[in-house]
């Protein structure tokens, strides 16, 4: 099982903060996962496709070519807003 986290405004589009899934065959990278999630829900797809939404695999920021095969947790992160 892989835990998918939708932070900030992505949660509104995803309808949930956390989703636990068995990665379907063929989902090898962060980019694949982004495309698969987007195809499932147009609303989430619109939010996820922004280049300002980064991904973290097991708490490390990675690019879309990074593997998710061994990932325990993949988080999608809209722009940060601290302070």
């Amino acid at each position, binding site marked *: 099982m892989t835990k998918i986290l939708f932070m900030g405004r992505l949660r509104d589009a995803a309808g949930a903060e956390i989703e636990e899934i068995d990665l379907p065959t063929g989902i090898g990278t962060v980019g694949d996962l982004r495309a698969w999630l987007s195809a499932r829900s147009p609303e989430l797809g619109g939010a996820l496709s922004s280049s300002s939404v980064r991904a973290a695999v097991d708490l490390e920021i990675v690019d879309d070519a990074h593997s998710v095969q061994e990932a325990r947790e993949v988080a999608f*992160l809209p722009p940060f807003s601290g302070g």
Partner: protein
Amino acid sequence: MIEVRITGAALDPTAELAALPRHPGVGAVASFVGYCRAEAGDEAVIALHLEEYPQFTAREINRIARAVSGKYALERLLVVHRAGVLAPGEPIVLVAAASAHRMQAFAAVEAMMDYLKTDAPFWKRERRASGSVWIEPSEEDRRRRAARSDT
């Protein structure tokens, strides 16, 4: 020494500053407190929701704090940041820097705030009478961050 804390409980800046240990070589402590606004434009703010990503958020702020502390030769850097639901008027963040002389302390606090605005993994949602709005860094915040190269 660096201390970073993220807390769901109320932040008391006066108590935090009073408890700040002072190394004999410290001649200056500068601090900044950010507060939750009560108004957004002409609308009243009901509450501010600050979402963190447990572990990740604290680690990223620690990384920024180490870079700032190193650059400005601080004796101490304290960052206390709220998470959870805040009422208007409540403190959101306290940054305090202790150094031998005032210039490093002032500069370090300003730098730390510039980084926190765009690089601290929080997500802010303002609850207003007309509904909820996600708050992202302003153009000014992004411009100030882009002008820095400490990290």
